[in-house]
């Protein structure tokens, strides 16, 4: 088991290394220069100013030298400085990460809660109107893009209930009430599609387990249907659901970019979006590495949890 985890982490590191190397060179190979953008922003673009600024930012050195010093920094935990804000990227991430983490966490809570409840309800009422209704709802939830759902939620809340989330962002430890009001809609909009995927999977794997021989045995022994449904069937259905959460986590992280922009949340997602527009290379690279790391880490965690839930996997 330990050997397996170590191997996974090593291959994850290789993957992240490849990814960042790729981004490093691609971003420097493609036009749309950060220096030109900044000077245009300031008003005048002259050749002397450009050369001056390139030297200032260290962009005049050969790409390989830049790469070497960047990589050296990364190994020491220094992700470089933002070319626009002129301060360490690490600092920016530490500032903004809690927002994204809270959003991702809340939407996973929404997704798992809503998804499992819906899936179980659907499975134990198989073939009824409830089941049909819930299945239609899941398919819809899976198909409506999160940014459209977000717009619908904002519009209907403001038109029908005359409610608008407080505008300036508050941290949860400063004002939890305001914070949750601001987080509720993006978290739901982001969580719904994952919830729908979980509901569908829960339903099908519950049904599969409910049709198996050992469940028949448990029933024959006279166990109550509650015991059968929750203790035996649901627990055994959790493994595929866990895999699904690991896989869907990537979509969820991607969704933070668009939802943080819509709801004006100062998280890592909106930082990456702005950095991309401004060609702020170090920020983009750091963002990619951060999201890549989270995604890889979540999937390793999922694999480890498997072993804990199902001893058969641990042994093999």
């Amino acid at each position, binding site marked *: 088991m330990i050997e397996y985890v170590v191997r996974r982490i090593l*291959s*994850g590191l*290789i*993957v*992240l290394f*490849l*990814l960042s190397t*790729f*981004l490093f060179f*691609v*971003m420097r190979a*493609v036009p*749309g220069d950060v220096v030109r953008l900044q000077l245009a922003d300031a008003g005048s673009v002259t050749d002397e100013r450009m050369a001056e600024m390139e030297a200032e930012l260290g962009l005049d050195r050969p790409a390989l030298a830049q790469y070497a010093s960047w990589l050296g920094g990364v190994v020491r935990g220094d992700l470089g400085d933002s070319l626009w804000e002129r301060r360490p990227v690490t600092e920016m991430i530490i500032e903004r990460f809690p927002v994204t983490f809270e959003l991702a966490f809340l939407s996973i809570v929404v997704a798992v809660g809503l998804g499992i409840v819906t899936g179980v309800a659907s499975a134990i009422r198989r073939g009824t109107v409830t089941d049909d209704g819930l299945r239609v709802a899941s*398919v*819809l939830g*899976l*198909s*409506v*893009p999160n*940014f*459209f759902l977000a*717009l*619908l939620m*904002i*519009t209907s809340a*403001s*038109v029908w209930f005359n409610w608008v989330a407080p505008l300036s962002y508050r941290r949860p430890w400063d004002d939890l009430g305001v914070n949750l009001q601001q987080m509720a809609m993006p978290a739901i909009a982001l969580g719904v599609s994952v919830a729908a995927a979980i509901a569908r*999977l829960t339903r099908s794997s519950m049904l599969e387990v409910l049709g198996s021989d050992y469940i028949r045995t448990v029933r024959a022994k006279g166990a109550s249907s509650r015991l059968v449904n929750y203790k035996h069937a649901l627990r055994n259905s959790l493994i595929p659901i866990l895999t699904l959460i690991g896989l869907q986590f*990537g*979509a*969820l*992280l*991607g*969704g933070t*970019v*668009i939802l943080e*922009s*819509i709801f004006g949340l100062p998280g890592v997602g909106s930082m*990456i*979006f702005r950095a*991309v*527009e401004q060609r702020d290379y170090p920020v*983009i690279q750091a*963002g*990619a590495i951060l*999201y*890549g790391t989270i*995604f*890889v880490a979540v999937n390793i965690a999922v694999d480890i949890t498997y072993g804990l839930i199902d001893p058969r996997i641990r042994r093999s």
Partner: protein
Amino acid sequence: MNTPTTPTDDLPSGSGPDRPPDTAADRSPAGGSTITEATEPGDGERQTPEQVALGRRQRFAESFRQFRSDHLMGFLFGIVILLLLLVAIAAPIIATHDPSAIPRPPQKLAPPSTDHFFGTDQLGRDIFSRVVYGARTSLIVATATVIISTILGTLLGAVSGYLGGWVDLVIQRIVDAVLSIPVLILALFIASLLGASITNVVLALSIIYIPRFSRIARGEMLRIRSAEYVTAAEALGAKPSRIIFKHGVPNLVAPIIVLASLTFGQAIVAEAALSFLGVGAPITEPSWGRMLSTSREFMTVAWWSVVFPGAALSLGVLAFNLFGDALRDHLDPKLVR
């Protein structure tokens, strides 16, 4: 109104479950050729070509009937997909106004009426016509992306799986790297680096989706490589290229088609998301995603400017999801999602 005959003629003969939905647009309604192409798997070399064609035709018709009766929902949404394709192709006929024309005097944010079915946007442009043309943008991007990533991804995976060794190792690490970063993030990077244009969106999305196809194709190829008929072919001295194309690829078709139809829906969402963020389709092309992002400031006063493009987008995704699901159950019930 002479275009509608194309899809209706096409429907009973060709648009069955064995065919990727994306090719329906660019294929002529020559019934016979569609069937042969659809079930290409090159087996049974001892039969005459006519017998093969007949056998395929029967098997295909049988499979199609089965699909229609077992997966009515998927079948109906298959028709929805064809209708969307029809709308995209016949956009100039269906649209009631020029999608980019700003009338004088402009009727800004006019509610839905008999003149403007879906109302008008903040510049006074007709939303119905823009939604119709948006279908074109959306389906062109999705179709091109799916075709490119299916072909390249399958080839890459098949070659990688068959050859093994360091080629396989290198390709798989790259595949892992691409798969380990969230789709939208990577698409955002690539599309914004290249600039907003239809071609660049297709390029960005293809780079992202190729690894998925190659992973599936590689897995299947590993299985096929150890099959007895491949060992036999190798013993007879078949070249690697012959084994890959003659024995490998035809056996990969089922899982790849399923993945392609599901990727279609995802590509539609991804294009809309990129356009929403302003790095997708250029401003000159009506796109559902961009319509949503430009209208969002006005949505409380003009719900129609957000609801109709969003509904069109959701319908497109829904149709491909349900059709893809049904296709998966039909072609291989055991396939994992």
